[in-house]
């Protein structure tokens, strides 16, 4: 049996009923849609991420200078022997981009970093305890938009974890 498509159909059939909307139902829908559209457009034109869900979809909207270094931020814990433990890959429930969004606040209030040591210990009971938490920015060098392979690590802030005995 050959499938019948609408192209083969010469006339409408009785089963093709349409459920209509009343004029009032249409009007309400159009008014609400227009309001949401207005908020969406206004959000993109004048507002920012804090206006979610009406903020501008600004993924990759910032122009990156072809000669400026590319920065990649990471938050790490430091153990007794100075080893780095990654904390910005979901180990304490926050993603790298979330840390990046809060960097200015964390630099001003580094004691917030201290809270992460406890969260890390809760999530990883068998892991070595952290002596300090630091924010490090790695800057990859670019030359006319092409990577040169060189990078430098820049420690923005280090917060030493107070000894348990010193805590109130």
């Amino acid at each position, binding site marked *: 049996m050959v499938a019948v498509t609408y192209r083969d159909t010469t006339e409408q059939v009785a089963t093709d009923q349409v459920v209509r909307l009343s004029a009032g139902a249409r009007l309400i829908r159009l008014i609400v849609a227009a309001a949401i559209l207005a908020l969406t457009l206004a959000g993109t034109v004048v507002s920012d991420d804090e206006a979610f*869900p009406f903020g501008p979809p600004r993924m990759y909207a910032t122009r990156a200078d072809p000669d400026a270094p590319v920065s990649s931020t990471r938050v790490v814990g430091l153990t007794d022997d100075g080893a780095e433990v990654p904390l910005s890959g979901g180990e304490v429930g926050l993603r790298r981009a979330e840390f990046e969004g809060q960097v200015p606040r964390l630099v001003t209030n580094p004691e917030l970093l201290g809270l*992460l040591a406890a969260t890390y210990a*809760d999530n990883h009971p068998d892991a070595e305890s952290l002596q300090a938490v630091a924010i490090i920015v790695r800057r990859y060098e670019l030359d006319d*938009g092409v*990577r040169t392979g060189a990078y430098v690590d820049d420690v923005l802030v280090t917060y030493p974890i107070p000894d348990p005995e010193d805590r109130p």
Partner: protein
Amino acid sequence: MSWVNRFAGWFFVPVPLARVAVFRLIAYLFIPVDVFVTTRWVAAHAGVPTEYYQPLLIGDWLSLPTPTTAVVDTVKWLLIGSALLAATGKAPRIWGTTTFLLYFEWMVIAMSYGKVDHDRYAFLVALAVLPTIGVARWRDKRRSEAAGFAVAVIFIAVMLTYFLAAWAKIRFGGWDWVNGSTLTRAVLRRGTDLSSWTLDVPGLLHVSQYLMIGFELLSPLMLLVLRDRARIALVIFLLGFHLMVFAGLRIIFLPHVVAILSILPWERLHRQRSSTEVIPRSDDLAAAAS
């Protein structure tokens, strides 16, 4: 008919109820996938010190609760229960509305920690409008103006995600955004084996930036795609774009991709199986426009 009526008419072109019944199932079943598999970091906020909570405007205005462990876990399980009930198609207005509200709160929990994602505007719009359709069954042969409105609005939201992304690039990056190194930066930070070679081809990522913003600025034209087959082609093109980005940058706009699926004529699945029946036409608008 005046142009006002014709404009309004575009929103209410009847769409088969079977189409939205299929899409609705996909959208609601995606929610547990989103929560437990593809966007697990939202639930991880349950364990984050509340000092890291940075309320959005909407969180302030509505005095939404600070996401403590209890709040996050409660919203999560209510959302899952509501989405599964909504997926059954029973009492679609009630469970659709609770699912939209809970998912919205879930997104507030997601976006209030220093990073706002832009991958689910259209999905939120879809969850908001699905309850307005009412009862819709897979085998329903009727078409509905309410379904037409829902599908039209989701389509506009999908389009706006691209168009406003171009606007944001011009607003934040300036007209010279295309000559910056935004994509180089993205590949350096998130690149995969499938994309890191692009760093070594001079000009490739530069040209890609022109192509990207060009497509985004032209995206309103996609609303003129009316015929079923053309819409299928459009969906394949859009999904191809997102798969390419995923292969190269490990970023998949998955909720947005689910919203894109609303453009497809899902009712054809059923038609092709019941081949002996005479098929009602679903392309009024296409016929009217041609």
